[in-house]
Structure formats: C-alpha cells, structure tokens
C-alpha cells in the first residue's frame, strides 16, 4: 500500500503507544535492561519515522534477535514461564518495531501489545490495576483502529472516541460471554512455578522468624463466617505442625505417615469460607479443628490435623470449611507409639541447663497437669517479657532464652514450652498458624494478615488427647485478645500498622480491602461452581453444558438485535441543533397555555395566532420568533446569539403562572 509519510508516522506512533502501554506493567518486574532495550528501540523507531530515515538492515535485526534470546536465556536459564516469556515477547516486539514497513507489521505489533497486556494480567490481578488495564485495552484498540485506517490520518481524539464507542458497544457481549462461557476445570498444561518468593509461614521455624512476619501487613487470608463467629480466644488458625527439633530450629515432618488420633468435639460448629492468598505453599489454614472442607483443589488432612492441598497456592483460592473450636475428652486413650516417640524426641546434649530445670520441676510435679501449670507459672513469674524485637540467641537457643534473655514472642515461648514438655516425657509439638484477625464490617469478613502469625504448643495428655497450650497467653494475655502489635507497650517504636491510625483512615482501608475482596471473590474467583450457582439463582434447575450453550446463543442473539438497533439509531441522530430545541420548548410552553402549534404551521404564522390568544405575551413572542427566524432561516451562517434566544424562550415560559 502506498502510504504518505504522514500516514506512516501516524502508524508508527500508534504502534509505539500500543506496545508501550502493554509493556509498562512489566517494567516493574522485568530486569532493567529489558526496559532499557524496549525504550531505546522505541525511541530509535520514532526518530527514524520523524526524520524519514531508512530502517536498520537485516543484519542488525537478526543479530539483535539472537542477542535478545541469549540474554533472556542467560538471565532466566529458560524461555519457559511467565517472566522469561514476557521478557522475550517484549524484546521481540522491540526488535519487530525496527521492521515495521507494511501494515501487517504494525497490526502484528498491536496484537503483541495485547499479548503483553495478557501476560501482565496473568501476573497481577489487583483491583488497583483494573483502571490501567482498561486504559491499555482502549489504547490498544485505538491503535488497531488508527493503524488499519486505509486513507487519511484521523485526529487522535476522534480515533479515541470512535474506538471507545466500539469498546462500550462490545462490553455487554463481553459480559455475556464472561458469565456464560463454559468454564473448564483445571489447567491443560503444567504451569511453570513463579520464582517470586512470597512471605508467609514456612515449614520450619527459627527463633526470630515469625517476628519478621509480624511486621508485614500483607494479607494471609480472609475468612467469612456463615453465622456464629468464635470468640477471639478460640480463633486459632492451624497451619504447619512442627515435630522435629535440632536444638535451634523446628521442622515439619515430611513423607512420614502416622495414624490419626480421632478427636471428639463439643461446643458450637462454625462454618466459614477461607479466601487464601497466594503463598506458594500447599497449605490451607483452618480454624482449629476443621471437620469438613470443600474447594477447587483436593484437600487432605494430615495425621497432625493440618489441611494440605495437592499443589502450592499460586493464586488466590477459596474454600468452604466447617470447624469445631473445642475438643471433648473421649478421644482414643493412647497415642500410637511411633508418634509418641517422634513427639518426645530431642537432640542429645543440647540445652543442658533446660534439661536440669525440667528434671527438677518434674521431680516436684509428677502429675502431667501439675507440671504443665508449673512451667506456665515459670513463664508468668520469672521476668519473662513479650517483645517483637528479641535479642539474638546462641546455638543452645532454649538455654539462652530461659536463663539469659527471657525476652521473646510466640515462637520463643512455644519452642521453650514444647521442649520442657518433651523433657518431662509429655508428647508435645509446635503448631504454627495465625491467631486473631481484624473484622472488616464493610465486607463482613475477617482479615488475617501476616502480622497475625502465631505459634503455640500442643501436648498429649492421657485421657484428654491433644490439648492446645499457648504459653504466650501467659506472658502477654493481650496478645490473644488484641493481636500481636497492640499487646506491646505503648512506648515501643512507632508502629506503622494501619489499624493504629485514625479512624477515617482505617475506614478507607476497610473499604478498599472490602472492594478488593469483593473483586477477588466475585470476579476473579468466578468459576464453574459460581457459574452453576448463578444459573441456579436464575431459576434453572440442574444446569449443564446444554443450558449454557442455549443461554449463550440467546444472549448472543439479543446482543445482535440490540447492536443492530443501536447502530441504526446512531445513523439518524436526534436533531442536535440547539435552535430547534429552543423552538420546541417554546411550542411546548405555548401548548401549556392552550395554544398548540398545528403541524402545518410555520413559526411566523404560529406567532401571529399566539399573539391574538395571548396579547400580554406579544412582545416576548415577537422577540423570540424574530430572533429564531433570523438565526435559523434568514442568516443561518452568521453566528447567532444562542444565549439571547435561550433567555427569550425562558422569559416566555416564565411569563405564565399556572392557575
């Protein structure tokens, strides 16, 4: 196609807009050099277009492509996966920019811009990005629109307006497709795992680790109770259970199977929905103790009652759960020997002073319950303090903590307590998870953040089964009532956690989080189950693929009818001449006074008749009709004084008061 330089420049500009807008969200994630290359090639291409220089030769382009491939491989060791794929796509788009001659090259680049947008969407689906994504879609469509014009260059405002209009027309059909397109379960091919590290509870616990977590406001999950909500003291969300201790670090048991001790429950049943954040771990946090679970992924319960998923949570997922918070005596009377052995095992020769202490206490309190109480009293009395910034501990962490520092948080206390239990022959383990949560009344859910990470102990008592003991509660009772942060002394370093701030700020945060949760729950999590629920809500019993197909066809037909009519209406728009509008207003006002304009009556004749019926209004009628006729018929090319005519029309309307 023979294109004038102006058209060519316009095409280059729009192509750059499409590629640039699609790339921008990646700029924050991809290495800096990728952004550098994309920016440099973009500017280069623009200057070539502005100065009408020839494009770089084949050698530059092909060696650039090879270099880009090598650079991506060197950076990521793969070209598979979202990150590497996005980087490669962006680089190839940048190189393709140097090869844009024909229309098809431009069009291809605009489509690559859409692919970059798609990749950005796969990476981040936050609500705050939605306006940006919408804008990029609009810009991309406008670029496609402008680039595919055959003839002249359209002003960018007009191109934006026309493509925006098309986009608006397309939205209803897109919504129909979104709601009714059959959703399929599961991925067709394996997803490469994201390399991004995400914060959250790990499968081991060092002294100090959880305190890093507690500084983070990031959400761990949200929970919405259907009905009753357990009291704060019972809101323990169970996560990884740690069995193995090497004197410093607690670890989770992997790949070993033990018989599950059955539990008996009492108290109310709580049913709730957990909306889990991506954490790259195959764990589901459930209120202690879960009895029922339902979700997209297969959920299994480990022997230590932790809920496990079949694969790591790489994107937000929701589960329906039911839990009891209180156990009742009457579980199996004896613990399996294999599990008992594991849960009293301690490393030889570590923490000698604690060993001596345990032996002394055990001699004084042979009864298990009395011994537990004695250890808790020890924590309560001996100058132990709760802090999120504890001193570093030596290799024999428990000794150092019990006899020297005596300052720590949940991890330290749970660890020390569990060791003291094991030293007395009582099977014990550390349970990590979350405790508490903040209620968001706007969204009606509990927001559990990383700051609510917690660790406690579970001990086996003969006749009672596994019992939760939270030694932190003894040291800082407030911790359970009000969360980790609040329980600290007021003089502690200034907190940056948001729920400390002013109420209005808190409300904004609540609203934003509620909006995000709604977005996540209703839009991002819309799946075949919710689709089914939607159809059932529409009154279709037992919907299946046929129902969907029929509804989809119906929706499509309705859309086609609507768009046909809407576009036909566009072709004959209402008369937008303000003069005609004013004249119609005038006639309406006259009709209200009983003088109706006949269809065959022109403005001058009508004015004559009107003046006869309403002599009082004659001056206004004369003035209005005079200036109307002058503006519309006698001198239509001269700029007429619309404001004056409007004033006259209004004067005529007002010159009459209803009786």
């Amino acid at each position, binding site marked *: 196609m023979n294109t004038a330089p102006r058209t060519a420049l316009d095409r280059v500009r729009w192509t750059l807009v499409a590629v640039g807008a699609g790339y921008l969200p990646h700029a924050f994630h991809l290495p800096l050099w990728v952004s550098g290359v994309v920016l440099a090639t973009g500017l280069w291409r623009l200057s070539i277009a502005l100065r009408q220089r020839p494009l770089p030769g084949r050698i530059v382009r092909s060696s650039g492509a090879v270099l880009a491939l090598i650079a991506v491989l060197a950076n990521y060791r793969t070209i598979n996966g979202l990150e590497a794929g996005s980087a490669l796509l962006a680089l190839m788009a940048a190189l393709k920019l140097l090869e844009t001659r024909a229309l098809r090259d431009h*069009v291809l680049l605009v489509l690559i811009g859409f692919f970059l947008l798609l990749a950005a969407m796969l990476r981040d689906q936050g609500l705050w990005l939605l306006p940006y994504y919408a804008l990029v879609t609009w810009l991309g469509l406008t670029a496609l629109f402008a680039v595919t014009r*055959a003839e002249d260059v359209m002003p960018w405002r007009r191109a934006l307006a026309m493509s925006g209009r098309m*986009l608006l027309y397309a939205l209803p059909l897109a919504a129909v497709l979104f709601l009714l397109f059959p959703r399929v379960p599961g991925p067709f091919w394996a997803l490469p795992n994201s390399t991004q590290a995400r914060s959250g509870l790990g499968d081991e616990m060092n002294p100090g680790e959880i305190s890093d977590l507690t500084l983070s406001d990031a959400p761990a999950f949200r929970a919405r109770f259907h009905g009753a909500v357990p009291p704060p003291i019972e809101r323990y969300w169970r996560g990884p259970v740690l069995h193995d201790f090497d004197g410093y670090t607690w670890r989770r048991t992997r790949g070993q199977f033990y018989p599950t001790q059955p539990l008996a429950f009492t108290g109310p049943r709580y049913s709730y929905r957990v909306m889990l954040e991506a954490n790259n771990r195959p764990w589901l946090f459930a209120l202690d103790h879960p009895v029922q679970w339902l979700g997209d992924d297969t959920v299994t319960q480990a022997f230590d009652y932790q809920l496990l998923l079949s694969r790591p949570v790489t994107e937000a997922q929701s589960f329906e759960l039911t839990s009891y918070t209180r156990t009742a005596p009457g579980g199996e009377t004896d613990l399996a020997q294999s599990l008992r052995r594991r849960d009293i095992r301690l490393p030889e020769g570590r923490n000698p002073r604690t060993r001596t202490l345990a032996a002394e206490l055990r001699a004084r309190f042979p009864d298990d319950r009395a011994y537990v109480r004695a250890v808790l009293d020890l924590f309560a009395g001996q100058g132990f303090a709760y802090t999120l910034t504890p001193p570093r501990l030596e290799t024999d962490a428990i000794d150092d903590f019990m006899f020297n520092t005596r300052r720590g948080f949940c991890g330290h206390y749970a660890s020390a307590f569990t060791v003291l239990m094991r030293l007395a022959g009582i099977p014990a383990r550390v349970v990590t998870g979350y405790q508490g949560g903040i209620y968001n009344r706007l969204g009606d859910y509990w927001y559990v953040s990383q700051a609510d990470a917690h660790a406690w102990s579970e001990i086996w008592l003969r006749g009672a089964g596994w019992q939760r003991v939270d030694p932190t509660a003894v040291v800082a009772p407030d911790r359970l009532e009000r969360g980790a942060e609040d329980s600290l002394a007021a003089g502690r370093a200034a907190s940056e956690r948001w729920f400390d701030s002013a109420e209005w700020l808190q409300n904004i945060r609540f609203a934003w989080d509620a909006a995000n949760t709604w977005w996540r729950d209703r839009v991002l999590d819309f799946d075949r189950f919710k689709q089914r629920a939607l159809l059932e809500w529409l009154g279709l019993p037992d919907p299946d693929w046929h129902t969907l197909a029929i509804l989809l066809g119906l929706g499509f037909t309705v859309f086609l009818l609507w768009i046909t009519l809407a576009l036909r209406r566009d072709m004959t728009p209402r008369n937008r001449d303000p003069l005609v509008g004013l004249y119609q207003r005038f006639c309406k006002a006259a009709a209200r006074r009983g003088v109706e304009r006949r269809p065959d009556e022109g403005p001058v004749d009508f004015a004559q008749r009107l003046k006869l019926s309403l002599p009082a209004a004659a001056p206004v009628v004369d003035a209005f009709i005079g200036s109307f006729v002058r503006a519309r018929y006698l001198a239509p090319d001269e700029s007429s004084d619309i404001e004056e005519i409007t004033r006259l029309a209004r004067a005529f309307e007002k010159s009459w008061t209803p009786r």
Partner: protein
Amino acid sequence: MRAWSLRRHGPDRLPLSIVRRRVYILPTSFGVFYGAIVFGMLLAGLNYNNNLALALTFVLAAVAVVAMHYCHRNLAGVQLRALEAEPVFVGQSAMLRVELLSTSALDRLDLEIRADDSESVCVSVPARERLACAVPVRAHRRGRNRVARLALETRFPLRLFRAWAWVYDCAEFIAYPKPGGSAPPPLAATSATGQHDAPGRGEEDFAGLRDYQKGDSPRRVSWKAFARTDQLLAKEYSGAARRWLVLDLNHTPGADLEERLCQLARWVVDAEGAAAAYALDLPGTHLALGTGAAHERRCLLALALHGEPSATVTL
C-alpha cells in the same frame, strides 16, 4: 452470479442505493488471524484460570462482532449517483467518475471502489455529502465497453471484515481503437499551391486569426489577442490549409477490420498532431475534411463504433 444478483436486487439503475440486502460481508484473512489470536488468548485464560485474561479475551472477541456491524453499516446506505467516463484508447484505463453520497448522518470512511481487474480507489464520504472520485477501468475492446461489475467495498474499521456490494452493468464507456500499424498515410497531394511539404512545416506559416471553435487546441488560441480583445481567437496557419488527406477504410492496409481500424486511428492521431486537415470515409459514415480536437474525437468515435449494432451516438 449475475443472474442470481438480478433476481435478488433487480437491475442496477442509477442512482443506486446500496441497501442492506445488497451488502455482503466476510472476514478478511486478518480477521481470521485475529480470531486465531483471540482463541489463543482464550486457551491461555482458561488454562491459567485467570478471569481477567478471559475478560480481555471476551472483550476482544466482542469488539470483532461490533466491528462486523460497523463494517456492514459503513456501506449500507451509500448511494451511487453517477457513473461516467471519457473515452480512451483500447488498453488504456478509462477513469470512471463515480459520485457517492452518504445518505445518513454517518461518515463513510475508507470506502474502496474497484472494477474487476483494476486497482481500487479509496475515499471517505462525509455524512450527508457527495463526493466524486475517479476509478480506473481497463478498456478491453473497441467500441462500447460495459463495466461488467463494480465492487464497492470497505474494511473499516479494524480490517477484520470486508463488506462489499456489487454493481452490475450500470456504466459504459467508449474505447477508441488503439493506434497501430506503420503504413504511410495516403497522402492526397492536392494542396492549394501544388507544393509538397514535409509534415510539420505547415505549423510555421501564420495565416491569420479566426473565431475560436469548440475543440480547438489551447495551443492554437491566441492568448495575446484574448488579452487585448477579450475574445477567443484561434490562430490559423497557412500550412494547415495546404495539406489534407482522406482516410478511407477501403484503402487502408491491414489483415482484418480491426487492424485496419487501428491503422486509421494511428493516421487520425498523427494527422491531428501534424495539424493537417483530414476526412474519414467509413462504410455508412462520412466525415468531411476538418481539423482540431473535436474533429479528432468525432473521427475516433466513428472508428470506435464502426460496426456496432446501434451506432447512433449523440455528440
């Protein structure tokens, strides 16, 4: 196709409204490619179970449907007001003057008009306005040429779809025989002075001024006289009167009629170029001695229409 179209739309007469039922629409190859891209996006969205990606996919798919309606609407309601072309020689392209009218409050962007074997012409017609453009149409044969089929099409917007309407047999133009042959012209040496002049000499002897006649070449207009008197006068050269020739089909060499007509066309063009007076004798037609563009036109037209069934031409 023609018969089917006749049944469906009736004969095409001007002014011709491209009504909705005349407009056909199919995806372009880019449209198919776009569909494949959207399908790929759909797979990615379903695979990653990513509702945002699916939403983008559905928006792009819906945009294509909307574009289809836009494309169809862009053509429906266009009116063809005039179709005419000046005669050309066989083998050349006649410029068919096509006048388009947008009958509604809609700008018709990127309309392409194309005769079957020629390049298309692209125009945009503003709302409620007329616009004329020249569409090349190849002249294949001597005489009357019908424009068998004219395609009015558009790929606006986005080039995903091509909507088109066919207009059959609604224009004709005349093609002169292509000047050909190399035989020397039959020189009738009867000149006023009995002298034989080489072609071209006659241009040099200025004889005087006469009234301008329609068809005189602008080169022969005396612009100086025009500036003085405000009257259009044509210069006459004495040489022109000295040379004249009679072109007779029956005395023209050539293998067949067409070749002889081509030869005659060549002589007519050459004689006009040399400013000689010439007469044309065809069976049934006699054009007396004359010169000038109008005469040339008349002669070429007679050659073009020689043997055509209805040779009555109003000039």
